[in-house]
């Protein structure tokens, strides 16, 4: 259904994790909106975020179900390294950064 996300650094284990733990409506959105989601995942890869993508899908799906341009706008408001650090280490604190 959303196997294409494996092309952006999602491992098989992460994939299973996503299918078990992500909201069903999020998975459905990702299936329906493949072209837009691919753009977003590509952007995360450009930022060197690959392993963190599974965490974003499960904990902050609103940062996946969004247009690439609006995501870029949002992230541009904070220090990019801090954003990457939070995604990798403490994704729940992104909200306090205003993201």
């Amino acid at each position, binding site marked *: 259904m959303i196997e294409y996300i494996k092309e952006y650094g999602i491992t098989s284990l992460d994939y299973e994790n996503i299918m078990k733990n992500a909201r069903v409506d*999020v998975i459905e959105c990702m299936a329906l909106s493949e072209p837009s989601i691919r753009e977003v995942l590509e952007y995360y890869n450009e930022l060197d975020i690959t392993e963190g993508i599974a965490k974003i899908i499960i904990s902050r799906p609103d940062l996946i*179900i969004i247009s690439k341009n609006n995501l870029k706008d949002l992230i541009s408001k904070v220090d990019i390294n801090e954003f990457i650090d939070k995604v990798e280490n*403490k994704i729940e*604190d992104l*909200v306090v950064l205003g993201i």
Partner: protein
Amino acid sequence: MEGKEILKNSIQNVKKTRINYSQKDLIVDEVNLYELLTTIVDNADNFAYVSTKIIDYLFSEQGIDDDEYFRDLVQARDLLLGKMEYNLKVDLKSKYTKQIERFEHDLCDFLDRNYPGIIESETTKYKLRILEDAVNYNKLIVDFEFVESIVSEYDDNEYDNNMLEVMSYINSHNLEVMKVKRINAPKFDIDFVKKPKLDDSVMEILDKLGIDYNELPNYILSELKKANPKKLYDTFCLMKKNKAEDGGILHLIPKNNQLTKLVILLYSSDNAIMNIVDSLKVNGVINVGILKILLAVIPNVFIEKNNEYFKPKLDDFKNNMKILKDNEINYPALINKSPMFMIMDSTILEYTLNYLKKEGASLKKIINKCYKVLAVDPSLLIENVNVLKKFNVDLNKFFNENGNYSLIKVKDLNEIINYIIKNNGEESLNDIDLMNATLKEYLKENK
């Protein structure tokens, strides 16, 4: 007694006292007359379900002797049957619609006369069914007015204590429900012995969309085969119109997203599309940018019909949009930043907002400041407000004198409050600015 037990006893008590007639009394020709009345009132097309035997019964019971009325009802019913079963295009003449209204009135009069209080009893039964369903099958309990009324009826003298227990049960029950992850993701792999042949008009649609029949996944083929070709074609004609104002949304769907086009064709409808388009109008002009976002990122808001693969989200979209408009929120900005807000389960969203409102929050402020948490994990806000209450933080002050709601958006508030007390003493919980500043320190220390 625990809250759940009190609630269950209250439900049983109401069943004994308020509902005092037998279901059998209402059945004629295997149809429940009360349910029949509500379905006709809901949609006059449901008059198609009224058999000649039911019409005869009502005429006899009400002492009606009017051949023309009888003939009109039978003719109207047959026309509606044709519409329902053979997709005939039927616009009932006004004489028929007037006779159906007269029938509704006569049926209502019959029920009222023979079963006094039935309307109220049926409403109670419906509410009881919803409440029991929520208690037994982990759904949200939201009709507090009804809960209050049945708990009061159960034991008026103990009402205050009982309500405290019941509300404490409901709060923890609802929080659990909000956290349950649904894991019933659909299966998309279907095998065919032979691929189905599609109707010519469906093939024409695929051709016009530039979609190759041979490249379609099997589940979509199967759904296209099952669908009504005429309805598909009608929706396609609406979608391919030039102007978004007229429902023309096809050209706004990303070119490389054929699945969204097909899913909207299959599971949306002219009404659903126009509903969404109209909701994005400001002074008669549609916000096409937002419409494009919906189609590109959350196309499931166009899904209205139940199906095996994608959950309908139209109602959630409509209800959530209403919440935004009622609270004068800048919805285009919110949808741009967090489209997911629009597909959040609207019952959960409403429950959360009502809960926070009861605790003193302004809905406009809470939506503007916490829309991301509301879109992803609304139960976190309720849990955190409960933590603040546990530590006796003045919630009125928190919600109204605070420009920053970060405290209720964090995951580990309990730990943070303990950190605040440890560093600044318990009295610092009255100083919202100091709490916010200490939160920043805590986050720095716990990177």
